[in-house]
């Protein structure tokens, strides 16, 4: 019999219930396979010995709960991840949005901010940064603190610079940051147009109307029902003719909002055609 998993499926459900009751964080709609894998990872990282103790700690120690949220969520990200996607923003989305007097952008599940700085660089190169505002939100406050610092490992810059070029960038990527020991500190000018805030896609409401919403590689962690609910939230937060962008493996197909959206050819970008509520 398998002994590798020290937490069984029933115990996973118990923890989800505890966390909802104690802290109001609702993970019931999360994909269980990934959630369980993260739980087991945390359990072994922290050298927990029994489920009972682990459970007690999560439910009663709010400092440890903070760590729980940090570790259960997957915060892996990159600058200009999927360069072709950013190229499509450059060539197909911003030429339209650029005609607006003001551009409000929501990055939902922005993690440590690499996406936000990529977006700011794009806007700056298109001369749109001045009239744009980037709302970058995440469930995890710790990643937002990092994002606000705008410092990323210098060792990543070679990769990011290649991504940047792949996205159609023509400047010297290193002109956007200064090297500071092992870190690359991005220009404050880029940060000036960002607002960081915690926002839980499961339980928090729409807080503004946007012309562009990006939510990339977050929905993969949700089951279909929760995905539909979150897509509805985006729909409520998007202006008519606004754009919704998802990760390369995510889609609005199958969801009730899909009828009102038209996909941009092969990109994972959809345009909202009508405002009618269904």
């Amino acid at each position, binding site marked *: 019999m398998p002994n*590798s998993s020290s937490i069984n499926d029933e115990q996973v459900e118990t923890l989800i219930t505890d966390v909802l009751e104690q802290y109001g964080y609702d993970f019931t709609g999360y*994909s269980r396979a990934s959630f369980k894998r993260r739980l087991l990872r945390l359990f072994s990282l922290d050298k927990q010995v029994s489920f009972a103790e682990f459970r007690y700690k999560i439910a009663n120690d709010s400092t440890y709960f903070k760590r729980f949220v940090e570790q259960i969520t997957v915060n892996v990200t990159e600058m200009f991840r999927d360069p072709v996607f950013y190229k499509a923003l450059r060539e197909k989305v911003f030429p339209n949005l650029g005609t607006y007097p003001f551009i409000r952008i929501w990055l939902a599940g922005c993690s440590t901010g690499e996406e936000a700085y990529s977006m700011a660089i794009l806007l700056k190169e298109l001369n749109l940064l001045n009239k744009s505002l980037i709302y970058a939100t995440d469930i995890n406050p710790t990643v937002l603190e990092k994002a606000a610092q705008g410092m990323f490992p210098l060792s990543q810059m070679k990769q990011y610079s290649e991504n940047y070029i792949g996205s159609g960038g023509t400047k010297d990527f290193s002109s956007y940051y200064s090297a500071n020991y092992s870190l690359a500190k991005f220009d404050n000018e880029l940060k000036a147009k960002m607002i960081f805030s915690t926002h839980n896609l499961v339980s928090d409401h729409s807080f503004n109307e946007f012309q562009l919403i990006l939510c990339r590689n977050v929905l993969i962690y949700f089951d279909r029902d929760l995905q539909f609910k979150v897509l509805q939230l985006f729909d409520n937060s998007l202006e008519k003719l606004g754009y919704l962008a998802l990760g390369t493996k995510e889609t609005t197909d199958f969801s009730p909002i899909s009828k009102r959206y038209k996909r941009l050819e092969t990109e994972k970008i959809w345009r909202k055609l009508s405002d009618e509520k269904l």
Partner: protein
Amino acid sequence: MKNCNALVIGGSAGSLEVLIKVLPKIDINIPFPIIIVVHRKQGTDSLLSELLSTKTALIVKEIEEKESVLPGTIYIVPSDYHLLIEKNLTFSLDYSEKVNYSRPSIDVTFQSAAEVYGDKLVCLLLSGSNSDGVNGLITVKNYGGETAVQDPLTAQVNYMPAQAILKANIDKVLKIDEMSDYINSLS
């Protein structure tokens, strides 16, 4: 094994040519899904499914997240995501840290499949130059599944199958031209 519910094939360097030789000989009526996890460069995924679909009459598709796992279909794990399988037999993709310097990681999918399919799972590890997949095979065995590897003597890069033989309990060591008969006999 009879009544196999899923076959997962993992491979790295040197595994593509094995797949190209084996897939054409797979019975088009196989009653279980075949899930293929291979290491490769980012952004080349549709190329792989396109290439492999020219080698078989079976449906070959790159996995979409939350789609149902269907029998008689060959699924390719997209590059740069880990593949997990949910208890309700749907696929989940995951963008967490690399495992064994790899994403997708073969270990991750073997382990996830083991939890879901238990003793109705067969995992086959092919040619490759790192040891991704070896721990996964150990888990598969713990759950009562069947483990198979490419005969290292026939592997372009023998490290991966050789490590598996060394560290895990392997039921079948297969030469390339034995693989299709083996797979066809699983039903």
